[in-house]
């Protein structure tokens, strides 16, 4: 099973005077994870709810494997959805939460029990949880219940709305891995909404960067990271210095982007542009150290591997050289390098 392809065609949606979506056309390929990435208010949750059938678009169509699903109500779409607040049924046990979708489909008895057990095994919740109230569980466990509840109906499409937003870093990392593992083993088409670029890179096969109701750019994480379409994408997906084009070394006007890690500290040849500057800020981030260097009253951010930072013995106020290759400078519109 290759998974159902979800296609949005020129989808518009407004709430009163507020326009949430302005003609979104996007394909979420079958069996893959497509991430909708953008700041709050960019329309990503609205698009997800339209995929779920919980909202109807004002204009435009939604297709599941080429079949027009625009007017199919949520209860007949076979989608599994996990909301940001999880929305578990507080008046039911873990087992009953997961069984809900099967019960309303008329599944009973041994088959019901088997399918609930299978999916709880899949998300890593054993028998001791079945009769617990969902309100007694930790955030990560509740997350697993919500995922199991969505998966038990064997949905055509899995829709995840910032499912890990409220979790601690470690739990989040673990669950991100598990979401990937489960998604791969079931080969289920997944649309994953988040505002967190690290989460997006960790789970996304395809990233759709959204802004103000538009999809700005679509591609694999690497494509989008290495070839952002504009300054917005460059600074939202990954971090970048936004520089004057001539300062960056190009023979044109306008602004360009230069990734923090593409700026090299005290380069030995192999760069096209070199400046001198003074280290003004050092932020230790673990594997990397983030430096701020003042070059002719312009501020440049660098991301240096920790070992390199230690080897060079740089400290606050040090005079350093910084440089980069012109091929790493991202220009936009006609100025693309």
């Amino acid at each position, binding site marked *: 099973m290759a998974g159902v392809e979800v296609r949005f065609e020129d989808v518009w949606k407004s709430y009163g005077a507020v326009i949430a979506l302005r003609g979104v056309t996007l394909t979420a390929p079958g069996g893959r994870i497509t991430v909708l990435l953008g700041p709050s208010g960019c329309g990503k949750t609205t698009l997800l*709810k339209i995929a*779920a*059938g*919980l909202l109807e678009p004002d204009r435009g169509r939604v297709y599941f494997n080429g079949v027009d699903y625009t007017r199919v*109500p*949520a*209860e*007949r*779409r*076979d*989608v*599994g*959805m996990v*909301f940001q*607040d999880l*929305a578990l*049924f*507080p*008046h039911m046990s873990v087992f009953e939460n997961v069984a*809900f*979708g099967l*019960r*309303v*489909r008329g599944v009973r008895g041994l088959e019901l029990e088997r399918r609930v057990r299978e999916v709880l095994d899949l998300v890593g919740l054993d028998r001791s949880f079945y009769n617990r109230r969902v309100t007694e569980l930790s955030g990560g466990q509740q997350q697993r219940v919500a995922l199991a*509840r*969505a998966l038990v*109906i064997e949905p055509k499409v899995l*829709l995840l709305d910032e499912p890990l937003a409220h979790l601690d870093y470690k739990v989040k990392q673990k669950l991100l891995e598990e979401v990937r593992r489960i998604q791969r083993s079931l080969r289920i088409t997944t649309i994953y909404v988040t505002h967190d670029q690290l989460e997006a890179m960790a789970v996304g096969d395809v990233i759709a960067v959204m802004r103000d109701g538009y999809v700005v750019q679509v591609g694999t994480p690497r494509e989008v990271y290495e070839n952002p379409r504009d300054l917005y994408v460059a600074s939202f997906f990954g971090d970048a210095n936004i520089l004057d084009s001539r300062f960056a070394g190009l023979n044109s006007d306008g602004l360009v982007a230069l990734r923090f890690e593409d700026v090299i500290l005290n380069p030995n040849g192999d760069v096209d542009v070199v400046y001198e500057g003074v280290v003004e800020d050092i932020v230790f981030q673990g594997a990397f150290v983030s430096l701020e260097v003042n070059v002719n009253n312009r501020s440049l951010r660098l991301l240096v591997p920790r070992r390199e930072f230690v080897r060079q013995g740089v400290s606050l106020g040090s005079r350093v050289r910084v440089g980069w290759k012109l091929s790493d400078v991202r220009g936009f519109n006609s100025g693309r390098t």
Partner: protein
Amino acid sequence: MVERSLVIAVAPLVVALLLLFYAPNIALVYYSFYDRVRGVFTVDFYLDVITNTVYLNVILYSLTIAVATVLATLALTLPVAVYIALYSRGFERILLLVIFTTPFWIDFLLRAWALKSLLYMVGVREGFLALMVGMVYDYIPFMLLPLYASLARIPPHIVDVARTLGAGALDIWARIIIPYAVPGVLVGSTLVLLMSFTELVIPSLLGGVRGFTVGPLIYTLILAGDDWGRGAALAIVITVLSVLSIVLAYRRFKGWLL
């Protein structure tokens, strides 16, 4: 410190209840057993009340009206409460709550008289219909507000999630709305049942000859007939009946309470 200030703050209410509620009720118990004419204690008044078919019929009739009032207010307010709790938000929600409760900012006697005039205008005279209209109208907020309070506890997105899981309208009512509504139904029904069972004003004003329920009966016995013994005994029988039915109802639905 907090406890001490609480004791002081609670005291006025306790004293008022003792003087104005418990003392008169203890007096009522006393009257129900004491025969002033013969000057002896007796259970005759109770025997009279529970064996006299006239009284029993009035009690049964009042109970029927009270139960009908509970069912009618429930049927009328449940959809409204669901709409307000699940589908309205912000200003709309406040506006709806105000719209459905403002009539009750007017004094209930005035309301009953006004309703009587209105019903006359459309040709409805005192009788069973007018009585029921008055009862239902009067008790709507006592059902609506507890129902709304219960349903407002339904977390956001729960209905949306249920829909994505394949739940149709019936499933959502049966598996989400009703379980959440049960505590509100119990509280609302208790309030409406107790108050409508012994309601005095509406049966008297709107019921005509069909308005002879236990409220007016006790009123007549004690104030018109000067029969304190039977009046008190009847009042206590009604109270015991009410408390019993509530206890039974709560026992029956205990497992349903969230």
